[in-house]
């Protein structure tokens, strides 16, 4: 019988006006991978912040027992001393420092304040080997991929003699191949060094893959803890716990009405990297979408899918762009974003906070921004009309906010994502390029977003859905293009596509066995 490493007893944490955690209990055994799941806002992150001391002792009620001792963390330093290390969703590496420097940041190998660099780099190399990153320790972090950065974070934790590793959505921006690498590393660490991990994730298949036990949070309370060591727990079972009801369908039904008419076509599109002008990021890509059709592009991060969409959208990315864009049989020369918008294109960005929304502005100002001319007369905005129209879209998309004057930063992730959609639906496009429209959104909100997408396509719009979630692609689209290293390497109708088939395509393409 394994021994209990961590016990959190009746943790309650309040923010002004909101009870974020309400009597949460969780027990973590030594040497297990414990998954923490729940919808956005269920309190997962808050709970981990309590554990790691970001919310110091005294700002919450309840008890934390780690390794048999009651903890009263005043800050991260205290919890790290015990070997509790948290890796946040937003990576905390400094881009212009080397891997070695980053690994020992805050944990410098020094004597009286003078850093011993030889020791630093020697140790860094050691840890780097453990996590399986094939890079020099002197490489700058900005030059390595996100997935490697994530592994470096784990190495950084190891350097602190971690006993309990907490990962907050470690795979949210990784593709399946790299995600698996992280999860396998956690398993190895568990088996070989007995390191315990708590992993927060939205990706249920990953949880099923690696977790020993799963604790489900809902609305700030623990629902249940499921044990996977005996027999596997189905995804449906977890979802039921998360949303509190059986969700038989994760993708809404849609009456398929694809018309023969080609709505949008891209031919021989080639784009070069914005900084490295001789690096091709999109290589001779052609695809087409019919009216009333959802076409998916599945590709891993770095496959060039976002660059492709942005380059099409009025050359918002890249240099030396060549190729043709044809809409409704007419060739378009889209040299700027306004031209793209005026010609009925919309691009819903993959990162709503970074490039999608004005967080400190109201819902209303966000929604009307792409087409202010709809609510303006000779450059003068009719604020009343603007409000009325924004209100209409808020209701239509079911955005949960008391009114349209509300600042977007006060909304939950799912509702922010809906604002982003509302903004582009308001622009009344014919072709929508949706780039990861459900990233970082919980199961319930995902379903609502899929419903909205379905409504759009039923109105006869053409939709390109870019996603790195295979199940989403398979659940939503009519036809799939697979993209890798800037090229379209396969095209298949939904009926012929399987997860294994698509992954195989990519694996083989990377090995160079087939070429487009």
């Amino acid at each position, binding site marked *: 019988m394994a021994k209990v490493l961590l016990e959190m007893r009746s943790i309650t*944490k309040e*923010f*002004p*006006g*909101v009870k*974020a955690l309400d009597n949460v209990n969780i027990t973590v055994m030594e040497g297990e991978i414990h998954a923490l799941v729940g919808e*956005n*806002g269920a*309190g997962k*992150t*808050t709970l981990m*912040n309590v554990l790691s001391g*970001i*919310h*110091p002792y005294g*700002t919450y009620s309840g008890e934390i027992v780690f390794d048999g001792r009651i903890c009263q963390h*005043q*800050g991260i330093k205290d919890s790290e001393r015990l070997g509790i290390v948290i890796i946040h969703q937003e990576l905390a590496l400094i881009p212009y420092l080397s891997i070695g420097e980053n690994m020992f940041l805050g944990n410098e190998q020094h004597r009286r304040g003078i850093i011993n660099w030889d020791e630093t780099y020697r140790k860094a190399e050691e840890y780097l080997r453990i996590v399986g990153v094939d890079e020099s320790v002197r490489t700058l972090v900005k030059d390595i991929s996100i997935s490697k950065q994530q592994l470096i974070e784990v190495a950084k934790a190891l350097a602190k003699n971690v006993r309990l590793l907490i990962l907050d959505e470690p795979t949210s921006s990784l593709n399946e191949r790299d995600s698996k690498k992280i999860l396998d590393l956690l398993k190895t660490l568990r088996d070989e060094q007995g390191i315990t991990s708590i992993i927060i994730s939205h990706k249920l298949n990953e949880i099923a893959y690696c977790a020993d036990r799963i604790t489900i949070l809902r609305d700030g309370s623990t629902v249940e803890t499921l044990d996977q060591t005996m027999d596997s727990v189905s995804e449906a079972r977890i979802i039921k716990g998360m949303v509190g009801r059986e969700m038989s369908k994760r993708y809404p039904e849609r009456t398929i009405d694809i018309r023969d008419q080609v709505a949008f076509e891209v031919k021989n599109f080639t784009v070069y990297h914005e900084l490295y002008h001789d690096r091709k990021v999109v290589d001779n890509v052609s695809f087409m979408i019919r009216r009333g059709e959802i076409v998916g592009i599945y590709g891993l991060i770095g496959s060039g899918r976002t660059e492709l969409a942005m380059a099409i959208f*009025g050359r918002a990315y890249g240099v030396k762009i060549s190729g043709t864009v044809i809409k409704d049989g007419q060739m378009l020369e889209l040299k*700027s*974003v*306004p031209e*793209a*918008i005026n010609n009925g294109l919309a*691009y819903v*960005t993959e990162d709503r906070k*970074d*490039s*999608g*929304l*004005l*967080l*400190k*502005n*109201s819902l209303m*100002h966000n929604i009307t*921004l792409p*087409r*202010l*001319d709809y609510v*303006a007369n000779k*450059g*003068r*905005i009719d604020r*009343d*009309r603007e*409000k*009325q129209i924004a209100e209409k879209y808020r209701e239509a998309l079911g955005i*949960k*906010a*008391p*009114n349209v*004057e*509300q600042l977007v*930063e*006060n*909304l*939950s992730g*799912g*509702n922010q994502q809906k604002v982003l959609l509302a903004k582009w639906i308001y622009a009344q496009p014919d072709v929508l390029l949706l780039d990861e429209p459900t990233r970082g959104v919980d199961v319930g909100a995902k379903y609502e977003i899929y419903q909205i997408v379905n409504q759009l396509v039923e109105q006869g719009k053409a939709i390109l859905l870019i996603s790195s979630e295979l199940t989403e692609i398979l659940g939503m689209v009519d036809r799939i293009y697979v993209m890798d290293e800037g090229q379209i390497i396969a095209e298949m109708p939904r009926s012929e596509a399987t997860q294994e088939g698509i992954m195989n395509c990519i694996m083989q393409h990377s090995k160079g066995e087939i070429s487009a």
Partner: protein
Amino acid sequence: MSSWKTTFRNNLKQYMMLFSLLAIIIAFNLLTDGVLLKPMNVSNLIFQNAYVVILAVGMLLCILTGGNIDLSVGSVVALVGACAGTFIISWGWNPHLSILLCLLIGLAIGIWQGFWIAYVRIPAFIATLSGMLVFRGLTLLVLKGLTLAPFPKEYLMYFTGYIPDLFPNAQLFGVKNTTSLLIGVIIAICFCIIQIHSYVMRVKKQYSVESVWFLVLKPAVISPAIVWLFYVLALYRGVPMVLIVLGIILVVYDFITSRTVVGRHLYALGGNEKAARLSGVNTHRLLFLAYVNMGLLAAIAGVVFAARLNSASPQAGNGFELDAIAACFIGGASASGGIGTVGGSLIGAMIMGVLNNGMSIMGISTNVQQVVKGLVLLGAVAFDVISKNRISFTFWKRLRKGDRGRFRASSPKVEAEDGSPSLHQ
């Protein structure tokens, strides 16, 4: 209606600033035994601060684009003054034409700086630091290190004069300049009519409207304030011409920032440049225009200031850029852009102006004044930051508990992500 409450909450900062201004005015009026609000001093206040307000309006637009500031405006004020002096005093050119020419020079300067900042992408701080040196140097070259004075009457009349009294014999309510009072009353009435008209139009078009109380309250506060200001001015020599210039600039720029597409794009650019660009905002051109505009307004301020000094001096405008920047930040503009209003900047400039003037009347040395102004700037922004992050809340609570542990600003970002007053369901 909750929507109005939200609007109110979003603008809370500005109301606070307005109350601070009123408090400062009242305090100094008491401290100076009523000298502060004597008709002559009110008139003085306007002359002393007109150019700062003009610069602050231009600076606000630059700051809105993303916290970009313009360090060169003081030098531009000097250069434009030097040009005006050379044209009018040395070469005897027609004052009207010279003023026009000076404004064109300002535009050209704006285009120069805007080009480097917006299209070559040189950080505004560096580009305008260069401008600060270049234009100061050019001023010295143009003036050959000398001061030119005095300007002819035709020139001074526009900026240091008062509007002529049409009824010199009428002594309505004991005022010296009846026309001024009448103008004030007319403006107040127009304001009320516009308010009521827009309310009626909205009801007609079935838009949602604020409660009737709000409709009554706004004119009920603002109209008497306008009438009072003009009454006080009328008691002295009437409405300064420069107040008219100022009024027009304020109304025009308030309209641009709050009601037009260009204005909305400015806020979007400062709020999130990438998002703005992907929403079809021409970000480079907008940044360019903000600096062109700054050049123009700096030129207007330059002509006004030269008239006030009644000379073109090589040292004119020293440190004006900092006054303008401070006014914007005191008035609630965000150092990272996207937040701030023309009204706020006006309030910020007035707070600085009243502090200056009030302390001068009290005989406090300019050295002390600098210290006070600096602290006010820090205090205003600190108040804003603290109230936003609720640091004070945790801080005081912990202090009271006698907690000796290290204080942490309990990361507001994390709260927004997973808990706090968001509206997740």
